[in-house]
Protein backbone atom coordinates (compact mmCIF):
# COMPACT_ATOMS: atom_id res chain seq x y z
CA UNK A 1 0.00 0.00 0.00
CA UNK A 2 2.59 2.52 1.12
CA UNK A 3 4.93 1.44 -1.61
CA UNK A 4 2.13 2.18 -4.04
CA UNK A 5 1.67 5.58 -2.47
CA UNK A 6 5.37 6.09 -2.68
CA UNK A 7 5.37 5.14 -6.35
CA UNK A 8 2.50 7.55 -6.95
CA UNK A 9 4.75 10.20 -5.53
CA UNK A 10 7.53 9.51 -8.03
CA UNK A 11 7.29 11.50 -11.26
CA UNK A 12 9.04 9.05 -13.61
CA UNK A 13 6.82 6.16 -12.56
CA UNK A 14 3.66 8.23 -12.86
CA UNK A 15 4.76 9.63 -16.20
CA UNK A 16 5.39 6.17 -17.58
CA UNK A 17 2.25 4.51 -16.16
CA UNK A 18 0.01 7.37 -17.30
CA UNK A 19 1.54 6.97 -20.73
CA UNK A 20 0.54 3.30 -20.81
CA UNK A 21 -2.99 4.06 -19.57
CA UNK A 22 -3.48 6.73 -22.22
CA UNK A 23 -2.30 4.36 -24.90
CA UNK A 24 -5.42 2.19 -24.54
CA UNK A 25 -7.86 4.62 -22.88
CA UNK A 26 -7.69 7.25 -25.59
CA UNK A 27 -8.91 5.01 -28.43
CA UNK A 28 -11.71 3.63 -26.27
CA UNK A 29 -12.82 7.17 -25.43
CA UNK A 30 -12.92 8.23 -29.04
CA UNK A 31 -14.93 5.16 -30.04
CA UNK A 32 -17.37 5.56 -27.16
CA UNK A 33 -17.91 9.24 -28.01
CA UNK A 34 -18.51 8.56 -31.68
CA UNK A 35 -20.84 5.62 -31.06
CA UNK A 36 -22.75 7.39 -28.28
CA UNK A 37 -23.16 10.56 -30.30
CA UNK A 38 -24.19 8.72 -33.48
CA UNK A 39 -26.61 6.53 -31.57
CA UNK A 40 -28.17 9.44 -29.78
CA UNK A 41 -28.29 11.84 -32.70
CA UNK A 42 -29.20 9.48 -35.53
CA UNK A 43 -30.83 6.31 -34.21
CA UNK A 44 -33.26 7.59 -31.58
CA UNK A 45 -36.72 8.93 -32.23
CA UNK A 46 -37.32 12.67 -31.67
CA UNK A 47 -38.83 13.63 -28.30
CA UNK A 48 -42.60 14.05 -28.45
CA UNK A 49 -42.41 17.31 -26.55
CA UNK A 50 -39.24 18.93 -27.76
CA UNK A 51 -38.78 17.47 -31.21
CA UNK A 52 -35.11 17.26 -32.09
CA UNK A 53 -33.86 20.03 -29.84
CA UNK A 54 -33.61 17.59 -26.96
CA UNK A 55 -30.78 15.72 -28.70
CA UNK A 56 -28.36 18.22 -27.23
CA UNK A 57 -28.92 16.24 -24.05
CA UNK A 58 -26.16 13.89 -25.19
CA UNK A 59 -23.74 16.76 -24.84
CA UNK A 60 -25.36 18.66 -22.06
CA UNK A 61 -26.03 16.07 -19.41
CA UNK A 62 -22.66 14.29 -19.59
CA UNK A 63 -20.85 17.60 -19.47
CA UNK A 64 -22.89 18.68 -16.46
CA UNK A 65 -22.47 15.44 -14.56
CA UNK A 66 -18.75 15.02 -15.18
CA UNK A 67 -17.94 18.65 -14.43
CA UNK A 68 -19.37 18.16 -10.97
CA UNK A 69 -17.31 15.04 -10.38
CA UNK A 70 -14.29 16.95 -11.68
CA UNK A 71 -14.40 19.40 -8.81
CA UNK A 72 -14.20 16.60 -6.28
CA UNK A 73 -11.24 15.04 -8.08
CA UNK A 74 -9.55 18.41 -7.88
CA UNK A 75 -10.45 19.07 -4.27
CA UNK A 76 -9.44 15.64 -2.99
CA UNK A 77 -6.13 15.85 -4.87
CA UNK A 78 -5.63 19.22 -3.23
CA UNK A 79 -6.34 17.77 0.21
CA UNK A 80 -3.85 14.95 -0.35
CA UNK A 81 -1.16 17.36 -1.50
CA UNK A 82 -1.68 19.46 1.61
CA UNK A 83 -1.86 16.63 4.12
CA UNK A 84 0.64 14.13 2.70
CA UNK A 85 2.71 16.76 0.89
CA UNK A 86 2.60 14.67 -2.29
CA UNK A 87 3.95 16.55 -5.30
CA UNK A 88 1.99 14.53 -7.83
CA UNK A 89 -1.25 15.27 -6.01
CA UNK A 90 -1.13 18.99 -6.58
CA UNK A 91 -0.14 18.34 -10.19
CA UNK A 92 -3.35 16.32 -10.51
CA UNK A 93 -5.31 19.09 -8.85
CA UNK A 94 -3.96 21.73 -11.21
CA UNK A 95 -4.53 19.48 -14.21
CA UNK A 96 -8.16 18.92 -13.23
CA UNK A 97 -9.07 22.59 -12.94
CA UNK A 98 -9.07 23.68 -16.60
CA UNK A 99 -10.70 20.47 -17.78
CA UNK A 100 -13.48 20.79 -15.24
CA UNK A 101 -13.95 24.45 -16.04
CA UNK A 102 -14.26 23.68 -19.74
CA UNK A 103 -16.88 20.98 -19.11
CA UNK A 104 -18.82 23.28 -16.79
CA UNK A 105 -18.78 25.95 -19.44
CA UNK A 106 -19.99 23.40 -22.00
CA UNK A 107 -22.85 22.38 -19.73
CA UNK A 108 -23.84 26.02 -19.30
CA UNK A 109 -23.70 26.84 -22.99
CA UNK A 110 -25.48 23.70 -24.17
CA UNK A 111 -28.03 24.21 -21.43
CA UNK A 112 -28.59 27.80 -22.49
CA UNK A 113 -28.93 26.73 -26.12
CA UNK A 114 -31.39 24.09 -25.02
CA UNK A 115 -33.24 26.52 -22.83
CA UNK A 116 -34.10 28.89 -25.66
CA UNK A 117 -36.41 26.47 -27.50
CA UNK A 118 -37.56 24.69 -24.34
CA UNK A 119 -38.30 27.59 -22.01
CA UNK A 120 -38.15 30.42 -24.50
CA UNK A 121 -35.39 31.91 -22.35
CA UNK A 122 -31.64 31.55 -22.50
CA UNK A 123 -31.46 31.50 -18.76
CA UNK A 124 -33.70 30.95 -15.77
CA UNK A 125 -32.65 31.05 -12.14
CA UNK A 126 -33.18 27.39 -11.49
CA UNK A 127 -31.35 25.62 -8.68
CA UNK A 128 -29.28 23.46 -10.98
CA UNK A 129 -28.38 26.29 -13.31
CA UNK A 130 -27.44 28.57 -10.46
CA UNK A 131 -25.27 26.03 -8.72
CA UNK A 132 -23.67 25.19 -12.07
CA UNK A 133 -22.77 28.83 -12.51
CA UNK A 134 -21.32 28.92 -9.01
CA UNK A 135 -19.32 25.80 -9.79
CA UNK A 136 -17.84 27.60 -12.79
CA UNK A 137 -16.80 30.45 -10.50
CA UNK A 138 -15.14 27.98 -8.14
CA UNK A 139 -13.13 26.49 -11.00
CA UNK A 140 -12.18 29.91 -12.35
CA UNK A 141 -11.12 30.94 -8.87
CA UNK A 142 -8.62 28.10 -8.59
CA UNK A 143 -7.24 28.76 -12.08
CA UNK A 144 -6.96 32.52 -11.59
CA UNK A 145 -5.28 32.04 -8.21
CA UNK A 146 -2.67 29.74 -9.69
CA UNK A 147 -1.99 32.10 -12.58
CA UNK A 148 -1.65 35.08 -10.27
CA UNK A 149 1.22 33.57 -8.26
CA UNK A 150 4.77 33.96 -9.53
CA UNK A 151 6.22 31.28 -7.25
CA UNK A 152 4.46 28.20 -8.59
CA UNK A 153 5.30 26.02 -5.59
CA UNK A 154 3.47 28.49 -3.40
CA UNK A 155 0.75 28.77 -6.04
CA UNK A 156 -0.19 25.10 -5.91
CA UNK A 157 -0.25 25.19 -2.11
CA UNK A 158 -2.59 28.17 -2.25
CA UNK A 159 -4.86 26.40 -4.72
CA UNK A 160 -4.87 23.33 -2.49
CA UNK A 161 -6.05 25.40 0.46
CA UNK A 162 -8.76 26.97 -1.67
CA UNK A 163 -9.88 23.62 -3.06
CA UNK A 164 -9.99 22.21 0.44
CA UNK A 165 -12.17 25.04 1.69
CA UNK A 166 -14.26 24.32 -1.39
CA UNK A 167 -14.86 20.67 -0.48
CA UNK A 168 -16.24 21.71 2.88
CA UNK A 169 -18.47 24.31 1.29
CA UNK A 170 -19.70 22.78 -1.96
CA UNK A 171 -22.27 20.46 -0.37
CA UNK A 172 -23.54 23.34 1.74
CA UNK A 173 -23.75 25.58 -1.32
CA UNK A 174 -25.63 22.98 -3.34
CA UNK A 175 -28.05 22.14 -0.55
CA UNK A 176 -28.72 25.79 0.17
CA UNK A 177 -29.32 26.64 -3.48
CA UNK A 178 -31.66 23.68 -3.97
CA UNK A 179 -33.51 24.65 -0.86
CA UNK A 180 -33.66 28.30 -1.87
CA UNK A 181 -35.20 27.31 -5.19
CA UNK A 182 -37.75 24.92 -3.71
CA UNK A 183 -38.66 27.63 -1.21
CA UNK A 184 -39.46 30.23 -3.86
CA UNK A 185 -41.31 28.00 -6.35
CA UNK A 186 -41.28 30.52 -9.20
CA UNK A 187 -44.51 30.85 -11.20
CA UNK A 188 -42.82 30.87 -14.60
CA UNK A 189 -41.06 27.61 -15.63
CA UNK A 190 -40.48 24.35 -13.83
CA UNK A 191 -37.23 22.64 -14.64
CA UNK A 192 -38.18 19.05 -15.42
CA UNK A 193 -34.85 17.67 -14.31
CA UNK A 194 -36.31 14.53 -12.78
CA UNK A 195 -38.79 13.81 -15.57
CA UNK A 196 -38.40 10.23 -16.72
CA UNK A 197 -36.35 9.78 -19.87
CA UNK A 198 -37.41 7.11 -22.34
CA UNK A 199 -35.02 4.15 -22.20
CA UNK A 200 -34.34 4.46 -25.92
CA UNK A 201 -32.74 7.80 -25.03
CA UNK A 202 -31.32 6.56 -21.76
CA UNK A 203 -28.81 3.97 -23.02
CA UNK A 204 -27.05 6.28 -25.48
CA UNK A 205 -27.09 8.91 -22.73
CA UNK A 206 -25.41 6.49 -20.33
CA UNK A 207 -22.82 5.69 -22.97
CA UNK A 208 -22.16 9.39 -23.53
CA UNK A 209 -21.76 9.99 -19.81
CA UNK A 210 -19.27 7.11 -19.57
CA UNK A 211 -17.43 8.48 -22.60
CA UNK A 212 -17.21 11.90 -20.99
CA UNK A 213 -15.76 10.37 -17.81
CA UNK A 214 -13.14 8.66 -19.96
CA UNK A 215 -12.52 11.93 -21.81
CA UNK A 216 -12.04 13.73 -18.52
CA UNK A 217 -9.51 11.10 -17.40
CA UNK A 218 -7.57 11.36 -20.65
CA UNK A 219 -7.40 15.14 -20.53
CA UNK A 220 -6.39 14.97 -16.86
CA UNK A 221 -3.53 12.53 -17.50
CA UNK A 222 -2.30 14.38 -20.60
CA UNK A 223 -2.32 17.62 -18.63
CA UNK A 224 -0.41 16.02 -15.77
CA UNK A 225 2.23 14.60 -18.07
CA UNK A 226 2.87 18.03 -19.52
CA UNK A 227 3.21 19.57 -16.06
CA UNK A 228 5.51 16.75 -14.90
CA UNK A 229 7.85 17.26 -17.84
CA UNK A 230 7.92 20.98 -17.22
CA UNK A 231 8.63 20.68 -13.48
CA UNK A 232 11.24 17.94 -13.87
CA UNK A 233 12.91 19.36 -16.96
CA UNK A 234 16.23 19.68 -15.13
CA UNK A 235 16.28 16.06 -13.89
CA UNK A 236 18.20 13.24 -15.52
CA UNK A 237 15.31 11.06 -16.63
CA UNK A 238 13.64 13.88 -18.57
CA UNK A 239 16.92 14.79 -20.24
CA UNK A 240 17.33 11.16 -21.28
CA UNK A 241 13.73 11.04 -22.51
CA UNK A 242 14.25 14.11 -24.65
CA UNK A 243 17.55 12.85 -26.05
CA UNK A 244 15.87 9.53 -26.92
CA UNK A 245 13.13 11.34 -28.81
CA UNK A 246 15.69 13.49 -30.62
Amino acid at each position, binding site marked *: MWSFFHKLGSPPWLFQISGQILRWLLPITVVALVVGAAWGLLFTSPDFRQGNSYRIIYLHVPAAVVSLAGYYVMAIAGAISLIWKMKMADIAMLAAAPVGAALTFLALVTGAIWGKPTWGAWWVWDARLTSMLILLFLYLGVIALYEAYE*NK*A*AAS*KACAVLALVGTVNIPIIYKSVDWWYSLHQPASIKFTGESTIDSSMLYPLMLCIAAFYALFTCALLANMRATILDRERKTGWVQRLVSEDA
Partner: protein
Amino acid sequence: MAATPLLEAEALGAERAGRQLFEGLDLRLDAGDIVHLRGANGAGKTTLLRILAGLSAYGFDGRINSRAPILFLGHHTAVKGTLSCRENLLWHPSGERFTEDLIDVALQRVGLLGYEYVPASQLSAGQQRRVNLARLYLSKRPLWLLDEPFAAIDTAGVQSLQARFAEHAEQGGAVLLTSHQALDALSQARFVDLDGGPGLE
Protein backbone atom coordinates in the same frame (compact mmCIF):
# COMPACT_ATOMS: atom_id res chain seq x y z
CA MET B 1 27.97 27.74 25.52
CA ALA B 2 29.36 27.80 22.01
CA ALA B 3 29.08 24.00 22.05
CA THR B 4 25.69 23.94 20.32
CA PRO B 5 25.33 26.46 17.48
CA LEU B 6 22.34 28.79 17.50
CA LEU B 7 21.83 28.19 13.81
CA GLU B 8 23.13 25.53 11.47
CA ALA B 9 22.48 25.40 7.75
CA GLU B 10 23.82 22.78 5.34
CA ALA B 11 24.01 22.68 1.57
CA LEU B 12 21.64 25.61 1.14
CA GLY B 13 20.67 26.41 -2.41
CA ALA B 14 18.16 28.80 -3.89
CA GLU B 15 17.01 29.51 -7.42
CA ARG B 16 15.04 32.58 -8.41
CA ALA B 17 13.64 33.32 -11.84
CA GLY B 18 15.69 30.47 -13.28
CA ARG B 19 18.96 31.79 -11.87
CA GLN B 20 20.87 29.81 -9.23
CA LEU B 21 21.70 32.42 -6.57
CA PHE B 22 23.76 30.16 -4.34
CA GLU B 23 24.37 26.46 -3.93
CA GLY B 24 25.86 24.11 -1.35
CA LEU B 25 26.17 26.93 1.15
CA ASP B 26 27.04 25.86 4.71
CA LEU B 27 26.57 28.31 7.53
CA ARG B 28 26.97 28.04 11.30
CA LEU B 29 26.22 30.73 13.87
CA ASP B 30 27.55 30.20 17.38
CA ALA B 31 26.97 32.37 20.41
CA GLY B 32 29.22 35.42 20.10
CA ASP B 33 29.40 35.36 16.31
CA ILE B 34 29.02 38.45 14.18
CA VAL B 35 28.76 37.54 10.52
CA HIS B 36 28.72 40.14 7.75
CA LEU B 37 26.94 38.78 4.68
CA ARG B 38 28.32 40.62 1.66
CA GLY B 39 27.52 40.62 -2.02
CA ALA B 40 26.64 42.84 -4.93
CA ASN B 41 23.08 43.96 -5.58
CA GLY B 42 21.11 40.91 -6.59
CA ALA B 43 23.60 38.44 -5.14
CA GLY B 44 20.94 36.83 -2.96
CA LYS B 45 21.49 38.24 0.49
CA THR B 46 17.89 39.05 1.26
CA THR B 47 16.80 35.74 -0.20
CA LEU B 48 19.25 33.87 2.03
CA LEU B 49 18.24 35.81 5.12
CA ARG B 50 14.55 35.16 4.56
CA ILE B 51 15.25 31.48 4.00
CA LEU B 52 17.24 31.25 7.23
CA ALA B 53 14.46 33.06 9.07
CA GLY B 54 12.02 30.43 7.78
CA LEU B 55 10.04 32.95 5.76
CA SER B 56 10.58 31.21 2.44
CA ALA B 57 9.37 27.70 3.12
CA TYR B 58 8.97 26.70 -0.54
CA GLY B 59 11.89 28.58 -2.04
CA PHE B 60 15.06 26.59 -1.24
CA ASP B 61 16.79 23.24 -0.82
CA GLY B 62 19.15 22.10 1.89
CA ARG B 63 18.76 21.71 5.66
CA ILE B 64 18.25 24.45 8.21
CA ASN B 65 18.29 23.82 11.91
CA SER B 66 17.85 26.89 14.11
CA ARG B 67 17.84 26.31 17.85
CA ALA B 68 17.00 29.82 19.05
CA PRO B 69 14.23 32.37 18.64
CA ILE B 70 14.99 34.73 15.74
CA LEU B 71 14.86 38.49 15.57
CA PHE B 72 14.50 39.41 11.90
CA LEU B 73 14.64 42.97 10.57
CA GLY B 74 14.08 43.16 6.83
CA HIS B 75 13.90 45.80 4.12
CA HIS B 76 10.36 46.46 5.36
CA THR B 77 10.04 47.82 8.88
CA ALA B 78 6.74 46.59 10.29
CA VAL B 79 6.18 50.16 11.54
CA LYS B 80 2.62 51.49 11.33
CA GLY B 81 2.42 55.13 10.36
CA THR B 82 -0.71 55.77 12.39
CA LEU B 83 0.70 54.36 15.61
CA SER B 84 3.05 56.42 17.76
CA CYS B 85 6.64 55.24 18.15
CA ARG B 86 5.82 53.87 21.58
CA GLU B 87 2.67 52.05 20.48
CA ASN B 88 4.52 50.46 17.59
CA LEU B 89 6.78 48.70 20.08
CA LEU B 90 4.16 48.20 22.78
CA TRP B 91 2.00 45.96 20.59
CA HIS B 92 4.64 44.59 18.30
CA PRO B 93 3.36 41.77 16.04
CA SER B 94 6.44 39.65 16.67
CA GLY B 95 4.80 38.68 19.94
CA GLU B 96 7.39 40.15 22.28
CA ARG B 97 5.96 42.30 25.06
CA PHE B 98 7.82 45.17 26.70
CA THR B 99 6.93 47.61 29.46
CA GLU B 100 6.54 51.29 28.56
CA ASP B 101 9.61 52.34 30.60
CA LEU B 102 11.81 49.86 28.80
CA ILE B 103 10.44 51.10 25.48
CA ASP B 104 11.12 54.73 26.34
CA VAL B 105 14.70 53.84 27.26
CA ALA B 106 15.13 52.03 23.94
CA LEU B 107 13.64 54.96 22.00
CA GLN B 108 16.06 57.26 23.75
CA ARG B 109 18.94 54.94 22.78
CA VAL B 110 17.96 55.25 19.09
CA GLY B 111 17.63 59.03 19.35
CA LEU B 112 13.86 59.26 19.31
CA LEU B 113 13.58 60.84 22.74
CA GLY B 114 10.66 63.27 22.57
CA TYR B 115 9.07 61.37 19.68
CA GLU B 116 7.36 58.75 21.88
CA TYR B 117 3.91 60.05 21.01
CA VAL B 118 4.56 61.15 17.42
CA PRO B 119 2.81 59.07 14.75
CA ALA B 120 5.47 57.20 12.82
CA SER B 121 4.14 58.54 9.51
CA GLN B 122 5.43 61.97 10.52
CA LEU B 123 8.97 60.71 10.96
CA SER B 124 11.74 60.92 8.42
CA ALA B 125 12.88 57.88 6.47
CA GLY B 126 15.76 57.22 8.86
CA GLN B 127 13.70 57.88 11.96
CA GLN B 128 11.13 55.34 10.88
CA ARG B 129 13.85 52.74 10.54
CA ARG B 130 15.11 53.74 13.97
CA VAL B 131 11.74 52.90 15.50
CA ASN B 132 12.26 49.41 14.17
CA LEU B 133 15.89 49.30 15.33
CA ALA B 134 14.75 50.11 18.86
CA ARG B 135 13.86 46.41 19.09
CA LEU B 136 17.60 45.69 19.17
CA TYR B 137 17.63 47.36 22.59
CA LEU B 138 14.54 45.49 23.80
CA SER B 139 14.38 41.98 22.39
CA LYS B 140 15.46 38.95 24.39
CA ARG B 141 15.98 36.87 21.25
CA PRO B 142 19.57 35.68 20.87
CA LEU B 143 19.68 35.19 17.09
CA TRP B 144 19.60 38.36 15.00
CA LEU B 145 19.10 38.31 11.22
CA LEU B 146 19.36 41.91 10.00
CA ASP B 147 18.88 42.96 6.36
CA GLU B 148 20.61 46.32 5.76
CA PRO B 149 20.23 47.61 9.34
CA PHE B 150 22.21 50.74 8.40
CA ALA B 151 19.93 51.73 5.52
CA ALA B 152 19.00 55.45 5.79
CA ILE B 153 20.80 55.71 9.17
CA ASP B 154 23.20 58.61 9.70
CA THR B 155 26.88 58.12 10.54
CA ALA B 156 26.45 58.57 14.28
CA GLY B 157 23.69 55.98 14.17
CA VAL B 158 25.83 53.47 12.29
CA GLN B 159 28.52 53.74 14.97
CA SER B 160 26.24 53.14 17.94
CA LEU B 161 24.51 50.25 16.15
CA GLN B 162 27.85 48.53 15.67
CA ALA B 163 28.54 49.04 19.38
CA ARG B 164 25.21 47.41 20.10
CA PHE B 165 26.08 44.40 17.93
CA ALA B 166 29.35 43.90 19.79
CA GLU B 167 27.50 44.13 23.11
CA HIS B 168 24.94 41.57 21.97
CA ALA B 169 27.67 39.18 20.83
CA GLU B 170 29.44 39.45 24.17
CA GLN B 171 26.20 38.60 25.95
CA GLY B 172 26.12 35.30 24.05
CA GLY B 173 23.99 36.35 21.10
CA ALA B 174 24.75 36.01 17.42
CA VAL B 175 24.31 38.53 14.60
CA LEU B 176 24.05 37.85 10.88
CA LEU B 177 23.69 41.07 8.93
CA THR B 178 23.92 42.35 5.38
CA SER B 179 25.29 45.77 4.58
CA HIS B 180 26.97 47.56 1.71
CA GLN B 181 28.93 49.64 4.21
CA ALA B 182 32.04 48.28 5.95
CA LEU B 183 31.68 47.42 9.64
CA ASP B 184 34.63 49.64 10.53
CA ALA B 185 34.05 49.29 14.27
CA LEU B 186 33.63 45.50 14.33
CA SER B 187 37.04 43.91 13.80
CA GLN B 188 35.74 40.58 15.12
CA ALA B 189 33.16 40.25 12.32
CA ARG B 190 33.40 37.17 10.10
CA PHE B 191 32.57 37.52 6.42
CA VAL B 192 30.39 35.43 4.14
CA ASP B 193 30.48 36.52 0.52
CA LEU B 194 27.83 35.77 -2.08
CA ASP B 195 29.39 36.31 -5.47
CA GLY B 196 26.42 36.12 -7.77
CA GLY B 197 24.73 39.18 -9.13
CA PRO B 198 26.10 41.68 -11.64
CA GLY B 199 27.64 44.95 -10.40
CA LEU B 200 27.83 48.31 -12.10
CA GLU B 201 30.33 48.39 -14.99
